[in-house]
């Protein structure tokens, strides 16, 4: 699959990267169809963070579910979902207080907080998906949520 790769200050490229895949029963694989450039990317793009070269940009993703793990029952293949940029488990002390921006298990490093996705056409990386918000077309009343574990390194 393709991804937008950070090469260094003010340098990005579109490259082939390993395909995302289901690794855990709670993973959801999403074929990303829209991915926006965010202003917060620019701090990394300009080299003003510790974001490492070779990692992928992008965390405003929308796409179609193409595969789900055995433990996922709310999100189904064919659903259109938006992926919150927060990576969160949904069941830790903070998530249960709606503080998915400070999930304690998706980001176990106590000195860090939060994490974000990357640009890639099958979702960001080989790790699992999390907390999709159902968005069937623009008129969905169904809201599919998958509480899945997600492993990721922090970004900012």
């Amino acid at each position, binding site marked *: 699959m*393709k991804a937008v790769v950070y090469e260094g200050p003010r340098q990005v490229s579109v490259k082939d990267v390993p395909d995302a895949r289901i690794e855990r029963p709670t993973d959801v694989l999403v074929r*990303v169809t829209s991915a926006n*450039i965010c202003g917060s990317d620019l701090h990394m793009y300009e080299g003003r963070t510790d974001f490492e070269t070779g990692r992928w940009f992008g965390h405003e993703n929308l796409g179609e579910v193409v595969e789900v793990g055995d433990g996922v029952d709310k999100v189904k293949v064919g659903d259109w979902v938006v992926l*919150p940029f927060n990576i969160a488990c949904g069941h830790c002390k903070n998530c249960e207080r709606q503080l998915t*921006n400070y999930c304690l298990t998706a980001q176990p490093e106590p000195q860090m907080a939060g994490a974000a996705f990357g640009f890639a056409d099958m979702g960001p990386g080989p790790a699992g998906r999390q907390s999709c918000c159902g968005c069937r077309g623009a008129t969905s009343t169904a809201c599919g949520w998958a509480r899945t574990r997600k492993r990721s390194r922090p970004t900012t």
Partner: protein
Amino acid sequence: MLADIFPTGYHATEMAGVKPGDQTVIYGAGPVGLMAALSATIRGAGKVMVVDRQPDRLRLAESIGAIAIDDSKVDPVQVVLDETMGLGADNGCECVGYQAHEPDGQEQASLTMNRLVASVRFTGSIGAVGVYVPQDPGGSDDLAKQGKIALDFGMLWFKGLHLGTGQAPVKKYNRQLRDLIAGGKAEPSFIVSHELPLEQAPEAYDHFDKRDDGWTKVVLHPAMAGAGA
């Protein structure tokens, strides 16, 4: 939109406590600042003022009924005071972050926060969703390099202001905001200027980073024609 910026802009107005009839000032008219302006409007603000210096962004703010304030031409704090009978806004949103800079490009990380402290009335609230970092080796001065800013804390305290900070908990808001879109009550896509294939990401980043005129928001489509292998 629902993955980040609309919930993030909404979160700024939530932390700022925007209520019907409020006068709300927003520093920064990038995508998040414009989403904060949209969110303040949805929450019933009586007057929304948006501060930036990019004409294309200010036009977008005006397109949803906000008052555009160009800080390269006027003192934004004075304009806010003039718009609020000298009292200051009821609440404000910080949507710029640690790379805040003067119109000439000189970075000053404390610029927008201190302008907010000066722009918001006694007992008002500020929601800061612009990114600040614990360390910034590329910062413009020693304080900035340590992730610190010279905040007007004395005035913040004197005025009894409330300050909320941090990244947005997207899931707290995204269903409701989605249903506002689905119900025709919100149209965050008004900021989208470009829809491009993924392979054009490098040039899109370049234009967006330079704030080139008209590059207000880029949506990349991996499967779009021209984005093939």
